[in-house]
């Protein structure tokens, strides 16, 4: 009975043992360590980005994407030029274009 009372008493004391507790503080110069960690993490981010971009697979994929983009843009441009020329009745075949550029009388060719 006494032991039970003692245990119950100790339990209540333990539950109240945090009364009056004060906040703990980190070790001195905490801000300096936070700043150093922040600087390290920022460098790490840039390092990982440049490491990723320098991978051969990434470089090849990037070049292929640029080439495809160029092909796409050029093909779109020539289609647009063709449709504009057709609308205005302009000559579009390459031989006529070369002939007109070199003042060659394409239509009145003297046959050998």
């Amino acid at each position, binding site marked *: 009975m006494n032991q039970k009372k003692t245990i119950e008493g100790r*339990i209540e004391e333990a539950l109240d043992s*945090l009364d009056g*507790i004060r906040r703990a503080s980190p070790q001195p110069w*905490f*801000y300096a360590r936070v700043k150093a960690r922040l600087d390290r*993490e920022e460098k790490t981010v840039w390092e990982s980005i440049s490491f990723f971009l320098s991978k051969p697979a990434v470089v090849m994929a990037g070049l292929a994407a640029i080439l495809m983009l160029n092909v796409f843009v050029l093909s779109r441009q020539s289609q647009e030029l063709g449709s504009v020329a057709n609308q205005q009745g302009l000559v579009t075949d390459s031989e006529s274009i070369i002939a007109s550029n070199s003042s060659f009388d394409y239509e009145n060719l003297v046959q050998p």
Partner: protein
Amino acid sequence: MNASIGSGFFNFDFLLNEFCVISFLAKKSGLDERLLVTQLKEGDEAAFKAIVETWQDMVFNTALGIVQNAEDAEDIAQEVFVQVYQSISSFKGDSKFSTWLYRIAITKSLDHERRKKRKKRFAFVKSLFGEESEVVVHPPDFNHPGVLLDKKEDAAALFGAISDLPANQRLAFTLHKVEGLSYQEVSEVMQTTVSSVESLMHRARINLKKALQAYYKENG
């Protein structure tokens, strides 16, 4: 206002002045907090330093109460402020800045505890397969440096019991007892209702009593 009720026992003027001073200081600290946050969003390092110095004890103490290890708590506290710096733009001001800080500290502390448990389980499984694993050293009883001297032994037993509580009960108990937050403040941090916090505290006390009973029976 010159009205005075009673000569020395109850002085209305004095109380009114005290109220005005406290309101002023509370408003001022709220304004300072908003100013610091605005400056930090602009990348002001001085503002960041002021934030760290103002709230470092709060963040460290919260982490310490949960992880019960000073080195780990320091590590977590650093991570918290790094995250504050990197994600300050996501703080919209719909809660107090300290509430936001508490949430980050709690998340990081609980993540740390989960990683620790995973490592222990992994080490245990490895040992079953006869693989060498790190020697598991059972940490000594945790002594919180802020506990009063005559209560240290009891507090160590209590912290041992707290570490075995379910996460929510542990959080509520730690925030209330170690950080000294009211039930209202605990509910804001945990994003729950005051009645939920009351229920968590009630269940925590029941579980702690059971754990302490077993502890004192075994240890005399």
